[in-house]
Each structure stands twice: as C-alpha cells, then as structure tokens.
C-alpha cells in the first residue's frame, strides 16, 4: 500500500503533520498568555487532514468545522496569520472577525469554517454544485465531526449531493470518545442510532468507507480512490475516519494531557510514560507515521529531528508574528457588513 505514496508525498505529509502538531502544542501555551476564548485542537487527527489534501488540486474547494487549524495548515494556510486571527489581530486572515472558530483562507480555497455543528455541510453541497456547473473536474471537500451526523441539514445535503451527483467529498472525522474518556467523565460526541455512521450515507447510495483516521497509508488509499472517481463524475463520496480521541481533547477545554510530543518516542519506548501512555503508544498518528517512515527507510532519525527543529522554529516565528500584530481599530467593527 505504501507504493501509492511517493517519497515526496510521504515527506510532505510528514511535514504537515509535524507543523500541525507543533502549532497546536504552541496554542495551548499561547492560551496561557492570552485569552482568546474557547478553542479546539486537531492533535490526534493529523493523519487525516495532512493526507486528504494530498489528493487535491489548487482549484478544489474546502469547508470545515471548528476543529479547523489542522485543515488550514495542511492546505497551506500561513501559521503566522492564523495565530494573528486566533488572537483577534489585524493581520489575521479575517482581520480578527472570525477567530479560531471561523478562520477562513480564501487564498487556499477554504470557503468557510462553521461554528454551527454541520453548518458548513449544506454550503459544501452548494460549492460542489457550482463546481459541477462550471464543468471542470474540481471537487469540494467538507470536514465535519461525528456529532454533525445528528443534524438534519447534513442528511438533507447528502441527499441533494447524491440525487444530483455533486462532486462533494464528505469527510466525517469521528473522534468519538472511547471507553477511557467515558470513565473519566469526558464529553461524549456522537449519539447515533445507526450501528455505523458510514451506514447512513450508504442508505442514500453514496459510496462510503470507514478507515482508521490515524493511518496515513490507509487514509490516502481511500481518499485517492474516492477523489479519482469523483473527478470522473461518479458523484459524492463519504469517508468516515475513525480516531481515538486525544486525551487533551476529552475535557471541555484543551489540556496538554500528553506533554510536548517527543518524536524520539517513536523508537525509544522508554520515553512513553504517564497516564496516557497507551494513547501515545498505540494511537498517536504522528508517531505511527514516523515509525512507518523509519521502517521503510525513507526517513532517518536525524533527518526527522532536523526537520522538526525547522518546523518548531517556524512556529516560534508564527507565534511572534501573531503576538506582534496590532489589535484592529475598534471602529472597524462597524465596517463590511455588506459587500459593495
């Protein structure tokens, strides 16, 4: 299966995963210094976002939900401007009007980040509709969580996409809390009567797959196949990516539950400690992909650590850029309600 990804692709995916991980870890620290409201981290789900974008072209469109940082970074959003937006600063992508919940980056084809559960899924059907009308082979990807499957508009949008054969890739990132977090009083997410989420789109004749969302190779295989078919006009596809929720996302507010990631844990099990050692050892998608890459000989420990140092430096600069950016002029709050 690794044959499907070229060395360059593997390297690009790993870079994206590292960038996302280090960005999100930085945000936890940033939240200690600044009050930027409630936020959500993508740690534990990097393999999905970092891999999905590998199958996309520059002219494809994307929409996402509030757990969006990973998607935007994977697609090429500038981390500095993202930090600025998260802090409500003037250099933010949305000039501070959106914050973490509504970060959008037009430059990389991101139409919207919805703060409403399932809120972007209807829009995604529309973006797919416009792309189909334009007659090119572009597609629209919409990321949403398992909880969105409880919203009526998602069912309606899937029905429209199927009826009209719209090029919409529904990526349901199921980070449903497992038994561990339930024992700890963690928040459950999806409460669906269907045995499997991916059964629901199947009933609407949408091609649907369930995949381990922490496995880069497996994610790429299903996404590449689905996207390839969609570009040929096969209509929508639904991919449920299952991940074991990162312990830091189990409480209402993110916590640094597993510490700053030590990449050497991929080859040195003695570094895996603490109450969440099981998650780190078994479920951390970043360590899993590093092990995969080391095993294939495509990556060396030194090269990995060198790359990580470069990315950490990039994140430090991004944070500094965001923190140095000015707050917007208060009066600008009154501008731009309507388009010219």
């Amino acid at each position: 299966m690794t044959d499907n990804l070229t060395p360059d692709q593997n390297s690009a995916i790993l870079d994206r995963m590292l960038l996302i991980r280090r960005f999100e870890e930085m945000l936890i620290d940033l939240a200690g210094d600044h009050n930027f409201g409630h936020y959500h981290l993508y740690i534990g789900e990097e393999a999905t976002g970092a891999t999905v974008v590998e199958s996309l072209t520059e002219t494809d469109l994307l929409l996402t939900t509030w757990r969006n940082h990973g998607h935007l970074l994977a697609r090429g959003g500038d981390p500095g401007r993202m930090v600025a937006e998260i802090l409500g600063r003037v250099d933010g992508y949305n000039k501070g009007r959106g914050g973490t919940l509504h970060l959008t980056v037009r430059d990389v084809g991101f139409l919207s980040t919805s703060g409403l559960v399932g809120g972007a899924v209807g829009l995604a059907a529309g973006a797919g509709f416009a792309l189909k009308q334009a007659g090119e082979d572009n597609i629209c990807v919409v990321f949403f969580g398992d909880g969105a499957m409880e919203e009526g508009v998602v069912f309606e949008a899937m029905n429209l996409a199927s009826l009209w054969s719209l090029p919409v890739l529904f990526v349901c990132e199921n980070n449903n809390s497992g038994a561990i977090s339930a024992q700890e009083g963690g928040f459950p997410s999806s409460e669906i009567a269907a045995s499997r989420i991916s059964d629901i789109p199947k009933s609407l004749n949408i091609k649907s797959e369930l995949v381990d969302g922490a496995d880069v190779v497996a994610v790429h295989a299903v996404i590449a196949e689905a996207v390839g078919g969609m570009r040929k006009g096969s209509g929508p596809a639904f991919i449920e990516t299952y991940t074991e929720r990162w312990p830091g996302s189990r409480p209402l507010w993110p916590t640094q539950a597993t510490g700053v990631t030590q990449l050497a844990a991929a080859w040195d099990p003695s570094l895996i400690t603490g109450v969440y050692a099981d998650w780190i050892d078994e479920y951390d998608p970043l360590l899993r992909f590093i092990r995969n890459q080391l095993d294939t000989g495509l990556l060396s420990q030194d090269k990995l650590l060198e790359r990580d140092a470069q990315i950490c430096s990039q994140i430090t600069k991004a944070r500094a850029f965001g923190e140095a950016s000015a707050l917007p002029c208060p009066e600008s709050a009154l501008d731009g309600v309507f388009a010219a």
Partner: protein
Amino acid sequence: MPPDSQQTDRNLTLKDAVLEAMFEEMESDQNVILIGEDVGTAGGVFKQTKGLFKTFGADRVIDTPISESAIFGLAVGAAMAGSRPIIEVMFGDFLTLVMDQLVNQAAKVHYMSAGGFNVPLVLRTGIGVGGNLGPQHSQSLHGWLAHIPGLKVVMPSSASDAKGLFKAAVRDNNPVIFMEDRMTYNLKEQVPEDEHVIPLGSAEVKREGADVSIYAVTRSVHTALAAAEHLQVKNVSAEVVDLRTLAPLDVETIVASVQKTGRALVLDGGYQSFGITSEIAATIGELAFDYLDAPVMRLAAPDVPVPFSPALETMTVPNAEQVVAKVTEMYGGLG
C-alpha cells in the same frame, strides 16, 4: 420568451413582472440560476416561474426535494463559489426551516471573512394572510429578517416596483430577501421594459399629502391608499410612503415626509410587538420629534397566530377602516 412580451400595453401583474425580471436577468447573466420546490417543470405552485424551465433548462432551473435548509445552504455555497442563485421558499413560514443557514451562515459570510467571500443570492418568498391557509402558511416574518445585519429585505407593493427591485436584488452582491404578499400577485399596472432597475434602499411617496404620513410596505400600501381616499372625504390629506425595502431603510424619505405633514402612522401586516412599525415609529421619534403634532401611531397585525376560518382570518389583517380610525384618533376625533 417572457410570457407577456407579446402584449403591447405592458399591463402586467406583479407576479408576471417578477417573472419577466427573472427572464431578463437569467438571459443576461449565465450565472443566475433558479432553485426551489416545484419551480421547474411545474412552473411554480402559483405559476410564478412559468416558462423558465422550458427556456433555460434543467441546469439552470432546478427542482429540489423538500429540504429547505440544505437547499438554501446549497444556494449560499454556490453563491460563494461563483453562482448567483435565486432560491424560492414556497411560503414565508418556511423561513423558519432556513434560519441557521440564513442567519448564521449567509448573513455573516462577508463580514466574518473580512470581505473574502460574498453571497450574491436572492431568496424569494410569498407571505401574508389570505386564502384561508391557516396559521402555518400565512405569516409575515419580515421583521425577523430586517433585524439581522447582513441581510437586505425587499417588499414591493406594485408590479412595476417589483420588476425594478427584483432586478436590483439579482445584481446585488449580498443575500437579498424578496418578499411578496401573495395578495399582491395579481395586481396589474404598466411595467417598463428591460432596463428598469430600482436601487435597493429607496422609498417612494405613492400619494402626496399634507396632513398625515402613512408608512407601509407591500399589500399594506394599498390599504393605506384606500384609507387615504376615505380620509380625503374628511378633508384630511394623507401622504402614503411605500418603504419598498426595509434593509436598507430609506430614513431620509421617511423623515422628509413627516417633516412636511407633522403626523405619522406606521402600518404593517406583520406583528406589532417588536415589529417594523415600532422601529419606524422610533426612528421618526428620534429624528423628527420637533415636527410632530401628535404621537406617532402604529397599526399592525394583532399578536395572534393567523386562524383558518374566513370569519376569523380577517381580524388579523389591518384594514382601511382601522387606518381611518387611527388617523381620526390622532386628530382627537374628526366630526
């Protein structure tokens, strides 16, 4: 071809005037599409989209499932990606099903993205009491929509205005809600051909008067005009101001009228409580208090659901007699 292009007198119903506007805008801009329940092959449940499917085909006149929320969401997403959709919501009451996509998404896209994206679409819907359709098919919820920053709200009273305002709505780069009272669908008048575009945000004085200003939209404009005739008999000269759009609101024309007359009555088919009559009355109070010879009065629908029975239904629509009575009250009685 537009259904009435053969006619030489250009005397069109409001419904056909809007249809003609749709024909023209769809002809001149390939990105304009029409989406809704039964708008295609059936030509609309009120025949308000008759002929469009035949002319523009299934790619641009699109029949949908009964999924108001996702259909509207689809229109928003399509608009963000380059289309200019006209979406029909069969009854204004069904706006309740569209509210998340309308209020949380469409209205906020431009602002939230700091101008990164626009939502150029028109949501067209029929509102109002009449035809004994009962509590879930008779509501006038325009006040809700005009309350939301980011939405434009258009409410024509006549065929000519409807055409000109509709064309402006289609060309606008924002979400525009175009609400017609179903009781105005068959009102006829001369309608100009082709380039007849009325800018959104311009009220019009439909009848000049000297003694009292009556403000209204859509069907209520006709109620006001009828009342003005009755008042004339009592030697009261009423001016009737058709607001035409609630958002943007033409405050200048509103204020100029009452500065002239000194008295103001705001009339509406929507509910009085927290409705548009309150908003306009307050605006007049703030900006023209020194010109007022009497308190600003309101006349709007009573705060009850719209009942089915013909005997009951009429109680929920303000009528000309009530307008006359209100104005009379403002004069402390008119022997």
